[in-house]
């Protein structure tokens, strides 16, 4: 017998193990490969040759090992299988195993039906995700672990994919939540992802093994798993060999493989050549000269400087407190730069700004006088109140101001920052349409940074490498998770760092042009393009952009500071009177303390952050409404959402039933049909029990039964509603399957979407507590009234309900539904009249009936009212306008309402429409383009807000304020 060898090539590391004839592990190693897979493996093999020499039966395993195995001809063992082999050998009594790797997460269920699961192609919650988050926090993974162990609380963070989590983490950083708590929340998110995304309805219990690098090295992650799964110390096993476990399994899986001499193995690996499978593009620059020419052209648009050390006179301050970076700019009245600063905010934007302002005062002494200041960006509110700045402006306005300075004819601006992409078209000197990246396609600047770091290279050097890459890899243009695996594949195929760097630059550009802007050709962008944002300072990205658009664009030398520059310009143009900005003396005395708390304003119990300034002022963030900030709430009388919520719950009269209790889960179709079914059940003698109010906690309650984690959030919330009803003593839960919704006679068919129509099937199949008796889900078509009576009778006859009663019950139900609809339509009329009288803008917050749920809409309606707007819903006004004929097949009841609502907005001057779209809603890929086209045909702005489990009102607020600013501009133009 010979020695057995296993080589595990993961997405970030290489592990090698050797097992001797007595099945003893005699060697193991674990090294990072920094994308140099072949070299690293060879290195390890050579070490092994030095140490032992000899013959081996060898197998390769791991996600990046597949290609290596195919091309070297060495045996391959699938990695989960490898783990499985090792588990059976060393831990025969284990019930389940959880393995987290660089980019994979796996669960193996051993007892009670063997099952092996891997994360789907869209799932974060892995080592790479943790790395990404650490980069975001600007700490090492080890530090993050240490911080997390000291946490006091955790915040909810979307765990499904890295991009989403980032959107959750960023506001926490900006709000000053402690690093300890954020770190712990990130680990908790990984655990939640594993439990919901992978286990999918199957509970992880018994003796559980934890494998893979992250679970071996990160104590806080271990702790989070053990606590969440409720494991005893004996049942949570962390093997000594966890990081190398797969390679040990692969070694064991080599039994029966022909043994070879180590020299032969080495030469097989050495012979592996790059394959021609990866697709490559053109080089960015063919020569140094070409690059020099390019640099020279862009230098021309740099601003001039003035020396703060000897300048005397007025100046204007602009601050852009962005998501990952903080930018400051101090300019003279003739737009020379006195002082500028750009730095990563390290999660503490306020500290950075205060210290830089102190520096300004120190440098400028009494010679300079700040005549006005303005703040923009994510941190606008906080910084404005801390600095007592004169103005706070929306980012989009700031960027536009700045771009105008460089090209008064500008008709298109694209800004790619660390976290977001913003594009706006300019028409007639005003912002005409705004496009921001949705949470899913944010392949932005910080993405390159994370990658560079993962490869162990500084970002500047990384992008420089890309400039002369000969064969930039084609990486696709979609979300970062996908790009991660595309990079993985390219690495597997042997692409070098330079090719990957250039490929990433081009991906970011394509992502922006084709996905965010949704241009079908580069010509749509415009003639006078200004590009800006820190990411464009990367020449590789800039070059990719010019190549893709075929246009020469303007990139100001201060591309990364445009927000701050625009703010300074704004301050200069708009100041009247004395500036309130903190002066040198006040600044010296400035101090602050932050603490987190739960708002007690209402039952939402938002996590809020209170920052107390030294002079006794307070700043509150994280609140969804004014109450959190200790202000009176904006009146809800102009908000149809609040009205609808109240009317909907009133449709349950609360009659005690002689026949028992019917549980109705208030989600998906029930948000539309609650009055109908409440009326029906109360009429036939059942008391109606409603499920708990939606909340993040309710979602977690049902998370373990979610079968498809890419379904929309409303659907996934449904699982929690079911659990809540099961716990609340309903005799049965009722949720009908309806292929067809009620025909409102304004579309060619009246379908429900597949998820709304058949979700009960999924609920029942994946929740072991549900059965035929306690979960009633008849297939109904409510348009066929007598048929529906018949079908309902066959279901409820066993409760002694007679057919006549069923018919009467349905009648009562339809009466209540109609009364409810009439009621909200009347209310809409009233709001419209009042808004017209008070000269208020009206926003139709258009989506689906279930977007009424405040856990789903995240209180956007309240945000709108706090901005002084009246709010309507699509179902309250759609039939106040004509029917419409659209380009797409108009065959869903809810969507038909959307098109008509858009028509309504188009025909009323003070009405605008904002479309709410649930992430993962495939049908809205169709509706949103059509709604946009209706609005734009009528000269209206289209705004779309994608919503999911993330609660990031900051971004939403920027969008809405940009919309308002644009509406204002439009009005001015008309006048």
């Amino acid at each position: 017998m010979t020695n057995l060898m296993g080589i595990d090539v993961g997405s970030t590391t290489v592990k090698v193990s050797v097992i001797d004839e007595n099945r003893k592990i005699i060697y193991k190693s674990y090294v990072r490969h920094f994308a140099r897979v072949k070299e690293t493996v060879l290195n390890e093999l050579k070490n092994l040759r030095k140490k032992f020499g000899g013959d081996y039966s060898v197998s390769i395993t791991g996600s990046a090992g597949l290609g290596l195995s195919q091309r070297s001809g060495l045996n391959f063992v699938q990695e989960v299988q490898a783990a499985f082999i090792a588990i059976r050998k060393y831990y025969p009594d284990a019930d389940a195993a959880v393995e987290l790797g660089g980019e994979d997460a796996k669960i193996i269920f051993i007892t009670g039906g063997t099952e092996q699961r891997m994360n789907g192609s869209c799932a974060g919650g892995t080592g790479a995700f943790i790395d990404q988050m650490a980069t975001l926090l600007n700490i090492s993974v080890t530090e993050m672990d240490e911080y997390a162990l000291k946490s006091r609380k955790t915040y909810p963070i979307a765990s499904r994919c890295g991009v989403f989590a980032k959107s959750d983490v960023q506001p926490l950083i900006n709000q000053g939540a402690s690093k300890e708590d954020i770190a712990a929340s990130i680990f908790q998110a990984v655990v939640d992802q594993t439990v919901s995304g992978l286990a999918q309805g199957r509970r992880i219990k018994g003796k559980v093994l934890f494998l893979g690098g992250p679970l071996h090295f990160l104590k806080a992650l271990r702790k989070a798993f053990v606590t969440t799964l409720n494991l005893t110390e004996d049942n949570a096993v962390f093997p000594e060999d966890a990081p190398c476990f797969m390679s040990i399994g692969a070694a064991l899986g080599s039994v029966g493989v022909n043994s070879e001499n180590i020299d032969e193995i080495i030469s097989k690996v050495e012979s592996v050549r790059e394959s021609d499978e990866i697709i490559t593009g053109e080089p960015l620059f063919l020569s140094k000269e070409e690059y020099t020419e390019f640099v020279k052209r862009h230098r021309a648009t740099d601003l001039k400087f003035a020396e703060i050390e000897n300048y005397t006179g007025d100046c204007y301050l602009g601050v852009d407190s962005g998501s990952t970076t903080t930018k400051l700019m101090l300019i003279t009245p003739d737009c020379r730069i006195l002082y500028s600063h750009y730095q990563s905010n390290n999660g503490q934007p306020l500290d950075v700004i205060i210290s830089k302002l102190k520096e300004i005062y120190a440098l400028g002494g009494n010679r300079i006088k700040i005549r006005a200041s303005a703040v923009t960006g994510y941190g606008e509110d906080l910084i404005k109140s801390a600095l007592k700045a004169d103005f706070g402006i929306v980012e989009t306005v700031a960027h536009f101001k700045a771009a105008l300075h460089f090209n008064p004819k500008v008709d298109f601006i694209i800004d790619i920052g660390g976290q977001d992409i913003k594009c706006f078209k300019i028409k007639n000197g005003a912002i005409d349409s705004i496009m921001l990246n949705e949470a899913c396609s944010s392949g932005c600047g910080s993405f390159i940074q994370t990658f560079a770091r993962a490869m162990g290279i500084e970002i500047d050097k990384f992008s420089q490498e890309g400039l002369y890459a000969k064969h930039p890899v084609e990486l696709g243009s979609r979300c970062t998770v996908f790009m991660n695996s595309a990079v993985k594949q390219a690495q597997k195929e042997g692409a070098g760092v330079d090719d990957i760097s250039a490929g990433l630059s081009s991906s970011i550009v394509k992502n922006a042009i084709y996905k965010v802007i949704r241009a079908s050709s580069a010509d749509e962008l415009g003639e006078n393009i200004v590009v800006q944002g820190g990411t464009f300072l990367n020449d590789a990205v800039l070059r990719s952009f010019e190549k893709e658009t075929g246009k020469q664009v303007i990139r100001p030398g201060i591309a990364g500071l445009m927000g701050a520059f625009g703010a300074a310009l704004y301050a200069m143009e708009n100041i009247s009177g004395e500036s309130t900005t903190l002066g040198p003396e006040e600044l010296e005395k400035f101090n602050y303390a932050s603490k987190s708390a739960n708002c007690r304003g209402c039952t939402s119990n938002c996590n809020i952050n209170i920052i107390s300034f030294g002079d006794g002022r307070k700043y509150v963030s994280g609140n969804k409404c004014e109450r959190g900030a200790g202000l009176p709430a904006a009146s809800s009388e102009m908000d149809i959402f609040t009205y609808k919520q109240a009317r909907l719950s009133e449709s349950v009269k609360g009659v005690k039933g002689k026949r028992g209790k019917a549980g109705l889960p208030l989600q998906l179709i029930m948000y539309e049909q609650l009055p109908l079914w409440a009326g029906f059940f109360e009429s036939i003698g059942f008391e109606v029990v409603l499920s708990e109010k939606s909340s993040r906690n309710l979602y977690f309650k049902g998370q373990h039964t979610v079968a498809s984690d890419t379904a929309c959030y409303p659907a996934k919330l449904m699982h929690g509603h079911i659990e809540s009803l099961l716990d609340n003593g309903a005799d049965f839960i009722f949720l009908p399957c309806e292929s067809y919704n009620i025909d409102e006679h304004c579309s060619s068919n009246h379908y429900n979407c597949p998820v709304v129509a058949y979700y009960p099937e999924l609920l029942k199949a994946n929740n072991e507590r549900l059965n035929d008796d306690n979960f009633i889900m008849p297939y109904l078509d409510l348009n066929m009234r007598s048929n529906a009576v018949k079908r309902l009778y066959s279901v409820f006859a066993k409760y002694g309900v007679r057919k006549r009663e069923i018919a009467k019950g349905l009648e009562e139900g339809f009466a209540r539904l109609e009364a409810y609809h009439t009621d909200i339509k009347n209310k809409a009329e009233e709001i419209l009249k009042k808004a017209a009288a008070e000269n208020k803008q009206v926003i139709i917050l258009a989506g689906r009936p279930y977007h009424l749920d405040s856990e789903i809409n995240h209180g956007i309606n309240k945000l709108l009212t706090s901005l002084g707007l009246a709010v309507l819903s699509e179902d309250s006004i759609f039939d106040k306008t004509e029917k419409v004929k659209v380009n797409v097949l108009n065959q869903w009841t809810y969507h038909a309402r959307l098109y008509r609502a858009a028509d309504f907005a188009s025909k009323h001057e003070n009405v605008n429409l904002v479309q709410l779209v649930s992430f993962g809603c495939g049908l809205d890929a169709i509706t949103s383009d059509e709604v946009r086209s209706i609005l734009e045909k009528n000269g209206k702005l289209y705004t779309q807000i994608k919503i999911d489990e993330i609660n990031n009102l900051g971004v939403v607020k920027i969008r809405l304020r940009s919309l308002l600013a644009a509406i204002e501009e439009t009005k001015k133009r008309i006048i």
Partner: protein
Amino acid sequence: MEEKITDYTNDYPKWDKSMKSTHKILVPNMLPWHFLIIQELLKMEGYDIEVLTNDSRNVIDEGLKHVHNDTCYPCLCVVGQYIDALKSGKYDLEHTALMITQTGGGCRASNYLPLVRKAVKIDFPNVPVVSLNFSGLEKESSFNVGAKLFLKLAFAIIYGDTMMWCYNQTKPYEAEKGSADSARDEILDYVLAKFKKGGYAKYKKICRYIIERFAQVKRTGEKKIKVGIVGEIYVKYSYLANNNLEKFLISEGCEPVVPTLFDFILFMVVNYVNEHEMYGHHKKSGFIYKLVYRILHKMQRNVKKLFEKQGAFMPIHEMEHLRKCADRIINQGAKMGEGWLIPAEIASFCETGVPNIICAQPFGCLPNHIVGKGTIRTLKNIYPDSNIVAVDYDPSATKVNQENRIKLMLATARDKLNL
């Protein structure tokens, strides 16, 4: 009083019958052999049809550029294939039309047509998009299929199915390399000749010939893992969308088992019958659907009998059995997309010795949340030996990711077979 309607539709070029003699019609590929037969068949009817075979990376890139980010992958592939073809310069753009099928179902697929129209219009304003449907959609620009042509198409599908079914059971085992392919080429000529010279309706004779001809191919008799492929119809069949899944499985030493297209046709007809019976829909036409179902189902049963009689191959599935399978897992009312057919096919596979299954679906496919991933738990309870993997397909999902998941499923399968 006539109702007022605001018309937001953009003008688009429409198909009219006279174009039959002037226009070339391009059709996206899905099942190469089926579509080849259909192409030839329609040519004989006087239509200048061409099934597209372009499959370069540019197809996907054009798709990405021309349809919404969140639109499902099949639509992206189809649009990409069209645009790539139209841009190739091979076609006279004043005399080219595009054809696409519409089922009129409740999932997004019925909206591919307007999306194709929107995408094509930008660069090719004179290219009409024609709908092929049996639900009365798109009356202004649709392809008229009479009863006779409908039957011919049904025969073409049956022959394509029989060929595919036999080929997949022959190719992995062929003793002489290429012999399965030459049998297929021979059969193709035979079938086309039947359409040309008459006798195409003698489906029993033709299917018997196909089965026997494939049975003549010498097979090694080795034991291989059978892998069933179910899922969204386009991704399941189209090699463009599923990265040549069948070929990959064969290269891994497996036998791919791909359900017939006829199953899907019958599934759609059954849904009309079901809705007639469940909700009282189609009051007047219900009996016609029943009749059509009975005729088509009888054909399927007869072909199945041919397989049983000949004995060389595992027989095809049969609709009544599939419906019984479905009833154990999901209500037949779940009809959108591939609906109850997916779990039914999985169950039917499990019962016929094919417990290893790939459920192929576009990333984010709405019906598949429920009828695909959502039913796996129930299926596992009923068939504890089943070994199912759901694989998402997407323009940016990498092959390595998909293959790795499939390999995991195969490793489990090998483990069970002790191969």
